């Protein structure tokens, strides 16, 4: 996982999988660090994530909730068709804001 702060937006780039193991703990640790740094606009780049299971979905919700509690916002970009299918069936596509790319997600934050 990599983190890049660009202006008031933080981009977390995930890779591999989000399946309830060390990957998930690493993601939540990164989210807490971002929030501790009082950064509230976060883009999650999922382009290199091959798999998310229900535990990984739980971690995404935990991260989303942490940010919401601080008045922040989390946007997902480059989500694979398969992960989009899981989000749709669980109706989590009504919770997470999905964008095709970083520019689109940035625009979604507004001024």
């Amino acid at each position, binding site marked *: 996982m990599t983190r890049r702060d660009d202006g008031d937006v933080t981009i977390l780039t995930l890779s591999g999988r989000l*399946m309830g193991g060390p990957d998930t703990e690493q993601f939540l640790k990164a989210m807490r660090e971002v929030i501790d740094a009082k950064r509230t606009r976060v883009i999650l780049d999922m382009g290199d994530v091959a798999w998310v*299971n*229900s*535990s990984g979905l*739980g*971690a995404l919700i935990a991260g989303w909730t942490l940010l919401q509690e601080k008045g922040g916002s989390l946007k997902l970009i480059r989500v694979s068709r*398969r992960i989009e*299918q899981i989000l749709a069936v*669980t109706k989590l596509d009504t*919770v997470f804001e999905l964008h095709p790319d970083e520019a689109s997600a940035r625009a979604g934050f507004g001024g």
Partner: protein
Amino acid sequence: MVDTPDAEVVRLVIPSRLELLSIIDKVVDGVAEQMGFEEDDKDAVAISVIEAGTNAIQHGHGHESERMVEIIFRLLPDELVIEVMDNGRGFNLDVLEDATAPENLLKERGRGIFIMRSMMDDVHFEFTDSGTRCRLVKRRRPLEVDVTGSPAPLDDTI
């Protein structure tokens, strides 16, 4: 379950480590190709078997990696039957809630079985003294036929 004579059987045994579940993806690729499944069905099978495996590792075996999860794929003429087995104590199916209900939407747990049931044609759990058996079924989609009973062309262009 007794193997039927016309079933091709693929068996996979993995230690209880979540990172090994990605192996299932590779196996499903091959099995789905044999079954002639389309991409959506292939994804549905892979997602569901991985959820069943996650359940087995997390709830059945409590992440004890030396305990093995067995996965059996039975390729039948009309359907793919998958069994995911652990030797854990099982769980109570009666307490499962609708994961998409507004009051549950932001819960961090409780989606695995819901996902399986949404994506497969049949999902059945059997709890015995020796463990839990999750049986998943994906049927082949019938060919679309026109009114004369002939298979429909693949597209509209002739």
